[in-house]
């Protein structure tokens, strides 16, 4: 189950989507908005998504995780729009029969998401703003 939403993410909902009777392990990754990037005090964050393509790329990640590990279920929710400090930007939940696979598949999913999914983060801090990773 894949979703990009401008509403606060309900973590329990994402976990519930990954729950399966055959699974002994669920690993859940939650990405939240930090109050600091290097030295700058971040006040808020904005996510922009190329939504149609982002959903397709997230579906590819889910499919790829299932081909590499014995994944029972995987759910990925990503927030868009304006987020305050402490809010949840992304939740990935992966269930597998054994725990090692859950950790590996979940880490693969967030690592790949950060490389391929067309979503962009703008950090707003005192006296400026910046698109993350845009410049070398």
């Amino acid at each position, binding site marked *: 189950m894949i979703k990009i939403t401008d509403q606060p993410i309900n973590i329990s909902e994402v976990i519930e989507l990954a729950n399966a009777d055959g699974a002994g392990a669920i690993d859940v990754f939650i*990405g939240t908005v930090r109050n600091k990037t290097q030295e700058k005090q971040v006040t808020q964050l904005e*996510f*922009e*998504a*190329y939504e*149609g*393509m*982002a959903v*397709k790329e997230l579906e590819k990640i889910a499919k790829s995780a299932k081909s590499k590990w014995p994944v029972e279920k995987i759910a990925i929710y*990503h927030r868009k729009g304006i987020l305050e400090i402490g809010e949840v*930007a*992304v939740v990935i939940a992966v269930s597998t029969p054994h725990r090692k696979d859950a950790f590996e598949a979940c880490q693969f999913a*967030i690592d790949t*998401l*950060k*490389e*391929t*999914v*067309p*979503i*962009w*983060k*703008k950090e707003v801090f005192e006296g400026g703003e910046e*698109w*993350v*990773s*845009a*410049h*070398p």
Partner: protein
Amino acid sequence: MKINILAFGIAREIMGKQEFTLDIPSQSKVQDLLMMLENQFPKFKDLASKTIALNEEYVKMDREINPNDEIAIIPPVSGG
């Protein structure tokens, strides 16, 4: 040929809008379009990377552009 281009994130800010039209030679490839964009908007040269998606898929640089393609400029992604 006239093509419609979508731009996101910092690319959208560089272009000044989310969607715009460009006139490019027919049979242009992805790499040609990127060069044209750099020439027309020099700030593109400063980006850490950029690519073009066609019809919501990453494509190779030598892929030919069709005027019916949904064309999008993808600056460095930073989700998660």
